[in-house]
């Protein structure tokens, strides 16, 4: 197990290296630079050159890369061009805000969607199945920004139950913090529930058609035992993989949801930084997101044997 984990961590190193080079090069291929954006429509060449020099943008790209990369290896992701804040604490602060919302949303989505998908498969072609699959398809098809706005209008404006804008941290006021994240969490879990229901249903259907399930039924086991003790264990693997992918994907940024609900999370930081061409922050965010993706998938892989004993960490 330990060897497997170490091997996976070592495999992540080249991934992160490739990511670092790609991010650095790609962001600089886009026209526009932070100095020009800071000066706006009044950028006379002398002021522009001055500012570019101060920001270190006058040096050649390889030099800029090696300076940045050398600092990254020492754990320093640099400072934001627009706010002068150190990038690593900034990214971590914003990440925890997003992570809290994502973890709660994916957890709720999983505990509702997985049983719902299994039951839909068990009652295939029944009204219940149609209702669940129909709901999942609708939830999956609604863009998150629109779903978010609908929730905002209903719970924020019509019922006046939940605050429409703003954010309060848990450290400051846990009750208020909870209120502020209800709608973002709801938006995400409704959307992801659609994905997970469909996957849980599809994988359960495949398993229910196998001979060992017929054998279990022939032994006279109850439907409940057949479903949860025999079918579910084998059917959960693909859904677990999907949960990992969803988690990795969402932890990488939920910019749209954060924009609608004014949550100062990682996704909004990344989008704002791209518009401002804040290179150190963009690079820091993307490198961190890649790291999170690798870690989440490693954890998913390590937990696989827990759900499916046929899979070993070796």
């Amino acid at each position: 197990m330990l060897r497997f984990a170490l091997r996976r961590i070592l495999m992540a190193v080249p991934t992160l290296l490739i990511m670092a080079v790609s991010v650095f090069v790609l962001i600089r291929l886009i026209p526009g630079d932070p100095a020009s954006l800071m000066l706006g429509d009044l950028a006379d060449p002398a002021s522009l050159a001055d500012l570019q020099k101060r920001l270190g943008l006058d040096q050649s790209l390889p030099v800029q890369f090696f300076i940045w990369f050398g600092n990254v290896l020492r754990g320093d992701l640099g400072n934001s061009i627009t706010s002068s804040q150190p990038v690593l604490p900034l990214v971590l602060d914003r990440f925890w805000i997003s992570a809290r919302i994502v973890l709660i949303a994916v957890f709720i989505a999983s505990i509702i969607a997985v049983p719902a998908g299994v039951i839909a498969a068990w009652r295939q072609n029944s009204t219940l199945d149609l209702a669940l699959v129909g709901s999942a398809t609708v939830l999956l098809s609604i863009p998150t920004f629109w779903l978010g706005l609908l929730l905002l209008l209903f719970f924020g404006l019509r019922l006046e139950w939940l605050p429409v804008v703003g954010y309060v941290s848990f450290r400051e006021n846990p009750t208020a913090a909870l209120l502020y994240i209800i709608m973002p969490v709801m938006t995400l879990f409704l959307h992801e529930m659609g994905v997970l229901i469909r996957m849980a249903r599809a994988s359960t259907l495949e398993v229910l058609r196998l001979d060992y399930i017929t054998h279990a039924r022939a032994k006279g086991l109850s439907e409940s035992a057949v479903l949860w003790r025999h079918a579910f264990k084998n059917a959960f693997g693909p859904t677990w993989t999907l949960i990992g992918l969803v988690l990795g994907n969402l932890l990488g940024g939920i910019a749209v949801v954060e924009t609608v609900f004014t949550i100062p999370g990682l996704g909004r930081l990344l989008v704002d930084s791209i518009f401002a061409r804040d290179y150190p922050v963009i690079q820091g965010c993307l490198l961190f997101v890649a790291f999170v993706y690798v870690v989440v998938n490693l954890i998913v892989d390590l937990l696989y044997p827990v759900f499916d004993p046929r899979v070993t960490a070796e």
Partner: protein
Amino acid sequence: MNKTTVSALGAVLFTAVPAAAQTVTVALNADIRSTNPGVNRDDNTDAVVLHMVEGLVGYRENGTVAPLLAESVQLSSDGKTYTFRLRKGVKFHNGAELSSADVVWSWNRYMDPKTDWRCRSDFDGHSGLKVEKVEAPDAGTVTMTLDHPSALFLDSLARTDCGMTAIIHKSSVKEDGTWDKPIGTGPFKYAEWRRGEYVILTRFDDYQSPSGDKPDGLVGAKRAVVPEVKFLVVPDASTVKAALVSGAVDVAQVLDSDVPELSKAKNVAVGLYPSATKHTFLFQTRDPLLGNVKLRQAIAASLDIPQLVAAVSNGNGKPNNSAVAITSAYYDEAQRQGYVYDPAKAQKLLKDAGYKGEPIKIIANKRVHVPSFNAAVIAQAMMQAVGINAEIEVLEWATQLDRYNKGNYQMMSFSYSARLDPALSYEQFAGPKDKQPRKVWDEAQAQALIEKASTISDEAERQKIFDELHKLQLETTPLIIFANGQEAWAHTKRVEGADPWEGKPRVWGARIVAN
């Protein structure tokens, strides 16, 4: 769950959110960049910072300059020395009284390259004008001596992007000289900035307002009434609308397209406010096609500008083909003259220009509060109607700005930030392309006129120059200015007197009338 239970649950949930009865909440579409006046700034930054700091002079509503921290400004007979007498009894937020030493200290700090003040090059000789010395003959007087007479000196000091050349107390910086927080003389004090979320300012109880009975641009009566102002970052326009209707936000700029719906909301009032922003179509006069003045004139004649302006502003905007803003004291009858929609003339000019249907690409962007894309779409249709093969290329703003700075375009739908003095407004787009590729109007006669308007202070003389410049601009058509900004702002009815100015919220004078 019955209705009573649901309502009770709702009430319990809602009361967990802290009430803000004495706070006026203003929505910003993006976070500020810093609290340092004129350094690392954008429009939102200027808007917030100018609630906390003030300069020696500031802009009036009509774009002229008036004393602010100065009581009077006198110009020497040679036109080179300005004498500012400071208002008495003005205090900084830390209780210290304003003196000429603070002005000299602030000026020296701005002129230090380490400060990175945006406007240093406008005063150190790089852009022509040089402030040779700044002295404090006594505690209430400051003199500034220039290398040559300039009609733009006071305007440049008052510019909002220069942070109004604010006079700040030296405790605004840390011991090592780095920026800490603004200790200014403005009507509100810095309280808290939570990055990405909000900035909170509190009322400065010892604030001394300049004379006047009502707010006038950034001068006039400035009364801090509400105890607290919260500038809340709300990036999404739909969320802004919902927040206004729910009362979570009191003041916000809104989309033109949202005006009809918000006007019907019972707790919201909507107003339209002009700004000196210029919405334009730029031509690259070095382009093989558009270098031909007849082709540029044909495009101008193909555009029904009143219809275009009405369409892009939801019927709220007013056409203006002049670089002199409609709100300017220099906007006279000559400035009202503009292009006339004449498709037949456009077709004749196309023929004279030898135009053979070559494509003309209009670059546009989709930023929320500028009409770039919509104007390009309408112009494309109007140009096509007379036989011009117009195409549109949509770019993200930073990319468009890069193309603008390099002069790499044929035609561009572009909005200029506000410049209140007409000479500064012309200077934004007129100049030598060899030295500055971003310049649009490279014409020796125009540059000589702008230079003259920058030097002389006589208003009648300047008016003549601006009228001549406008005529020349219409004839040579290096760009088509089609309108100034006309921005829609909404406020909840619990707040009164929070009228924005030049696209910036202005909370002094605002008061809460209901809760």
